[in-house]
């Protein structure tokens, strides 16, 4: 791919995205609700696309294709089990939404703090999210750097790519808060899914249609069609990968915060169904890319090269290759800007407001806006430094955030849950996951996330049993939700 071509595509993408971001500026975004939740008035279609763009980072088309390249069909099982796990939204979605509307929660950790009647709960849960998600964003930024460097043969240096992604993520969040993020996300999600699906049709056509494609796969690389197949996806590896992702829709604040935003339950429904359809198509597309690469280029040094190699091969017309490459960059940015916005709302709402008493909504918003570039700068520096610890925390992010899940389930389903239970389970659980990841130890062959979830569940239940629950709040909170769900329209 020529560098001029790549730059031209990037410039066109930026112009269109900025145009959309500016168009989204209608409505009030001068308070916390407006800036971070779009006044809880997001329509279903935008919610669905934005949820998709936020969830699916550059990981899909590069990482999942690579995982298919190395391990075969198990990668499909892994990603579809994640998608099946999004059914949790059908149960927790209306509960989050109703509670958010009644009590005015801006962040999921604020909800936990109020429900368990303890400020430290909100502070600790939000800081845990920052601990794992800032490194995760850093790795996404590095991804953009490597991608641009790779496809232009070093003509666009690593730092330029990282800087570009950082600046764009800040701009998209700044223009109108969640509104500009949601609208640019939607554009990017549509762009990603349409272009990557076109590539699938082109390559399947070149390989003799679906019949020819699967026939070649069955005869030449049959080990890729079963698990454990070539041994990559042993059952314990599969469990270790899928369990953290199964709970992703609850554990990751940048997506669970989305449950507060839709304008109505009907919009929430559109968001869920739209996302499931999007995820289904996008997963199949990424896996087919991986299969194709394993048929055509079986000897790559590194599985992450599967997508770049496919895109720059003569299978894909050069213009389409460049467009899809920009789409992958957009996928990374649309994940980073949402995380950036969510983390700054967590900091302003759960840390700043609880540490400094009597802060006004305006002050919180000012702090939130101030924190956006600070978090972005941290992620940028982490991406530059390429520290081992950052990579570890990033890999551990889905496992590490899992330790909050027992507390979230307890919020809606267990009156006996206590603040002490939440604090012990989150702090000890997160520490355990980090230690296991640093030492690379897998007790009984099971990955860190499974241990984190197990230990945090046991601690949450046991410590809660021996401490006093906020009975009045729990009864009022659960009673309200039960009442409304019963007469759910």
């Amino acid at each position, binding site marked *: 791919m020529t560098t001029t071509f790549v730059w031209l595509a990037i410039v066109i993408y930026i112009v269109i995205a900025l145009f959309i971001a500016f168009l989204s500026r209608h409505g009030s975004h001068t308070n916390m609700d407006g800036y971070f939740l779009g006044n809880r008035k997001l329509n279903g279609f935008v919610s669905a696309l934005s949820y998709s763009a936020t969830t699916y980072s550059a990981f899909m088309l590069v990482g999942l294709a690579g995982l298919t390249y190395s391990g075969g*069909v*198990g990668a*499909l*099982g892994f990603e*579809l*089990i994640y*998608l*099946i796990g999004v*059914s949790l939204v*059908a*149960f927790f979605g*209306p509960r989050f939404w109703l509670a958010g509307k009644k009590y005015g929660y801006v962040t999921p950790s604020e909800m936990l703090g109020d429900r368990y009647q303890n400020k430290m709960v909100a502070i600790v849960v939000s800081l845990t999210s920052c601990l794992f998600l800032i490194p995760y964003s850093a790795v996404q930024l590095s991804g953009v750097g490597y991608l641009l460097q790779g496809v232009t043969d070093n003509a666009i240096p690593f730092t330029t790519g990282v800087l570009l992604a950082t600046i764009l993520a800040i701009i998209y969040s700044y223009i109108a808060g969640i509104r500009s993020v949601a609208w640019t996300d939607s554009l990017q999600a549509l762009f990603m899914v349409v272009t990557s699906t076109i590539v699938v049709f082109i390559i399947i056509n070149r390989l003799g249609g679906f019949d020819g494609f*699967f026939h070649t*796969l*069955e005869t030449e690389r*049959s*080990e890729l*069609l*079963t*698990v*454990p197949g070539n041994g990559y996806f042993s*059952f314990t590896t*599969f*469990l270790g990968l*899928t369990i953290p992702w*199964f709970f992703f829709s609850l554990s990751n604040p940048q997506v669970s915060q989305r449950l507060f935003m839709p304008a*109505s*339950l*009907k919009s*929430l*429904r559109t968001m*869920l*169904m739209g996302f*499931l*359809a999007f995820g*289904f198509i996008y997963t*199949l597309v990424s896996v087919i890319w991986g299969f194709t690469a394993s048929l055509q280029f079986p000897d790559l040094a590194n599985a992450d090269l599967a997508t770049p190699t496919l895109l720059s091969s003569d299978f894909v017309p050069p213009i389409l290759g460049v467009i899809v490459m920009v789409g992958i960059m957009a996928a990374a940015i649309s994940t980073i800007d949402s995380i950036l916005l969510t983390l700054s709302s967590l900091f302003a709402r759960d840390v700043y407001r609880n540490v400094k008493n009597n802060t006004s909504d305006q002050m919180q918003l000012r702090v939130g806006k101030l924190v956006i570039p600070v978090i972005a700068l941290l992620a940028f520096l982490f991406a530059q430094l390429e520290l081992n610890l950052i990579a570890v925390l990033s890999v551990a992010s889905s496992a590490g955030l899992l330790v909050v899940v027992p507390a979230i389930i307890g919020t809606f*389903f267990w009156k006996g849950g206590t603040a002490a239970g939440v604090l012990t389970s989150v702090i000890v659980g997160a520490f355990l996951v980090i230690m296991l990841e640093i030492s690379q130890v897998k007790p009984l062959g099971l990955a860190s996330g499974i241990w984190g979830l197990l230990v945090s569940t046991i601690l949450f239940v046991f410590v809660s049993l021996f401490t006093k629950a906020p009975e009045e709040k729990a009864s009022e909170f659960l009673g309200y939700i039960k009442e409304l*769900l*019963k007469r*759910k*329209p």
Partner: protein
Amino acid sequence: MTSSERKWALVILVIVLSAYILPYTILTNEATWYGSFLLWTVLTLIIIGVNYFITRDWSK
């Protein structure tokens, strides 16, 4: 949990268990497109249908 939610949760649990167990047992030597590839795809489509039904009355 409402009683209809409990019913659906059970259906989802059965699907999730099938998604873990079947590929590693009866389909582990079925190296064709109608092995694990088809199973996971079909289970996901069923789940999309289940979600459609769970959320059917979220009209307001």
